[in-house]
């Protein structure tokens, strides 16, 4: 009985994680300028990762694999937002004005000097 409940719970988590990734993807496509798109992408980074990984850990049960999954989740939760922050910061440095969003959508920035 319990593992049926666990299975249902992990299915729910996995599907909602999937939905979040989908939302992030659609956001990435439809939003007008650079900064809003990063916001959409970071959505997938944090929320979706959390949901998907917990869902898989429930599936894996109490084994070494779930410990590894937990470590990977921590790693992703740490690097995802940092990468988004660094990207936004670099864009700001290279002169892309956030508010107007009129400047041509230059996302280019050379490797750090």
């Amino acid at each position: 009985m319990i593992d049926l409940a666990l299975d249902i719970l992990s299915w729910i988590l996995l599907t909602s994680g999937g939905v979040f990734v989908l939302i992030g993807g659609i956001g990435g496509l439809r939003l007008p300028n650079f900064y809003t798109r990063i916001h959409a992408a970071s959505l997938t980074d944090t929320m979706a990762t959390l949901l998907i990984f917990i869902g898989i850990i429930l599936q894996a049960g109490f084994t070494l694999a779930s410990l590894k999954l937990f470590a990977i989740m921590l790693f992703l939760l740490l690097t995802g937002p940092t990468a988004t922050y660094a990207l936004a910061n670099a864009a700001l440095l290279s002169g892309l004005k956030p508010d107007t969003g009129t400047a041509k959508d230059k996302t280019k920035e050379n490797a750090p000097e």
Partner: protein
Amino acid sequence: MIYIFALFLLTLLVITAIAIVRAEDLFVAVILTSIFSLLMAINFFILDAADVALTEAAVGAGVTTVIFLCALALTGDQEKPQKQGQKVALVIVSILALVIIYSTFDNPQLGDPDAPVHQHVAPWYLEKTPEYMDFPNVVTAILSSFRGYDTLGEVFVVFAACIGVLFILGVSPPRKAMQVSVKKSGLRHHLIPQVVGRLLIPFIVLFGLYTQFHGEYGPGGGFQAGALIATGVILYALLEGEAEALRAVPRRVLLGMVVGGALLYGSVGVVCMLMGGAFLDYSVLAADPVWGQQLGILIIEAGVGMAVCGALLSIFHAFAARERVS
């Protein structure tokens, strides 16, 4: 079921490749290339090639992108569009593709167990590895012992690339680069990435070492470990500045690692020869042949890891130290 994944990922792969070729802006093309090799790594994993997926991810997505970006920083990153000569190339290339596609109808199906590939040499490896080496990972057994001569050649390809880049780009970095390093030339005022980086880099290097010595039991080995440790140190260089990373791992140490790794691998072979076996026959290294094989494989994997890590780092430093000449 797996084939549905493969179908989806392979079409994504082709779309990315076409996007890369059409991208005018080289920076976009380089980022798409790293996505391309990550997709390739996932494909390899689906096709049961765990070691190759790890290598493709670490070397293909990681180090290649960094080297490409360094080269882009030194050259312009706008590609000039040109219009002539494309039709002829398109015709030649599509004829070639059609010829290959025509010949693929005789190939064995994907995953068909009685294809000739699985009949002759592979079963011997799967059966003899527990007997001669007594460790689980058959790929590492073949890579380091059954076909160890190939991997020796491989280490010398990496060695050649390293001395080639050092030779072509000239060992001595331009004088004025040295004064620049006084000011922290890394991501100057990015506190958050530096803090997170400082938190993660020890674990990246630790994971690299784990992959190095875990090579016999799971996917891993010298190449992957060298690439992982190199990415860790490159991340440190990006965050703290190239001069800081050079102070941590100076150039002479890198050259010593490359030369040492290559020589370590070769000298294990010569020692086997002196102890009466054939070249690279590790079973003569110890009284019990199985322990000899394991000992030999452990040492040469360490040699491969040193050589690959040293080579990738000195290539990165050779590019990073160069002043941009506009």
